[in-house]
């Protein structure tokens, strides 16, 4: 995978790899000529596919541990992808508290289901915004 700065017609150089949360893999690339930086973001399914190959975007810095993939990804018996109930950040809890009480339980369950389906372990206001946009829950 290579990135081209179209304006400079220059190959961009890998700069950094990060796991910012909610199953996203971020890799940044910088144009050595103009200094422009772009970030490639993978969705959780794409991140999982990369992980399943046992490779690392940006290159490996340390050799793989024995049974690294198996020990990291094999679960304790839950069905594929299902994780424990996600936690709520303080900000997200405050936002949820502002939802009218008579629908709060339903709204909480919707966000929790959204997070569980995507392997998200912590619900933050950003996750809530994304869920609202994706699920058409404007106003919740």
């Amino acid at each position, binding site marked *: 995978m290579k990135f081209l700065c179209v304006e400079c017609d220059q190959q961009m150089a890998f700069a950094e790899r990060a796991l910012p949360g909610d199953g996203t893999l971020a890799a940044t690339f910088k144009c050595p000529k103009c200094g422009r930086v772009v970030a490639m973001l993978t969705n959780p399914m794409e991140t999982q596919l990369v992980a399943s190959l046992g490779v690392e975007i940006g290159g490996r810095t340390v050799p793989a541990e024995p049974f690294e993939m198996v020990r990291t990804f094999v679960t304790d*018996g839950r069905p594929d*992808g299902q994780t424990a109930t996600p936690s709520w950040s303080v900000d997200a809890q405050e936002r949820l508290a502002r939802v009218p009480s008579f629908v709060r339980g339903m709204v909480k369950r919707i966000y929790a289901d959204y997070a569980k389906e995507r392997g998200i372990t912590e619900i933050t206001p950003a996750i809530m915004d994304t869920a609202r946009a994706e699920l058409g829950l404007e106003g919740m």
Partner: protein
Amino acid sequence: MRTYHQLTDPDRSGLGDQIGAQRKRVAERLAAVRRIVAVMSGKGGVGKSYVTAHLARALARGGRGVGVLDADLNGPTIPGLLQVPHTAQPPAIGLDGVKCISMGHFLDEGAPLAFKGPAAESFVWRGAMEASALREFLGDVEWGSLDVLLLDLPPGMQRYSELCDILGNAPAVLTVTIPTPESRDAVRRAMRAAVEHGSELLGIVENMVGGELKGSAGDDLAAEFGTPVVARVPWHPTPETWNRLAAQL
């Protein structure tokens, strides 16, 4: 717009090199294994794991260094057949000194194989995860010097194909069938695939002979593929049954 190969600076990720390093790790690990034999069928319920475990034990009793890789990731039975403690670290040592690796070592008792990850569309990545687990089993177990490594394959051909890709060549194959025509037809497909991949056919084990199961699958397949029936295993085999089979490998 330029193409990938027109950008000549190295790709820092080097995914191709990382895959190459994985292959090298497998090759180096298996360099001390004299012979790799895949026990396969293409048909479920014919006793592949049972045959594999008892063949391994017979080979070990005959003084050979033997390992078993349980490639049935979703239904691991080798630890039970070799009476390996659930908590044993791979390679575990089972009955008669047979070494083994199995997904059973990594799962809680009775738990199904499942992976962490996004639940939505898990079918997209699950197969890749299983192939990666097989690669780790092949590349990460410190077998030491072995005369024979038996690979106990699940029903179907997917794992066999993955195995050929990971090994970089097609392993020798020992085929297991039961006498019925239904088994013969399913096993025929598997044997054809094995031949097309270039596997050496070591022979056919006809299992569950002498009971209610009627047919001549062993002889039919032997004639069709020009490979011998190396064992006919009755419902209640004795150690001698397995010793005779081991002597032919």
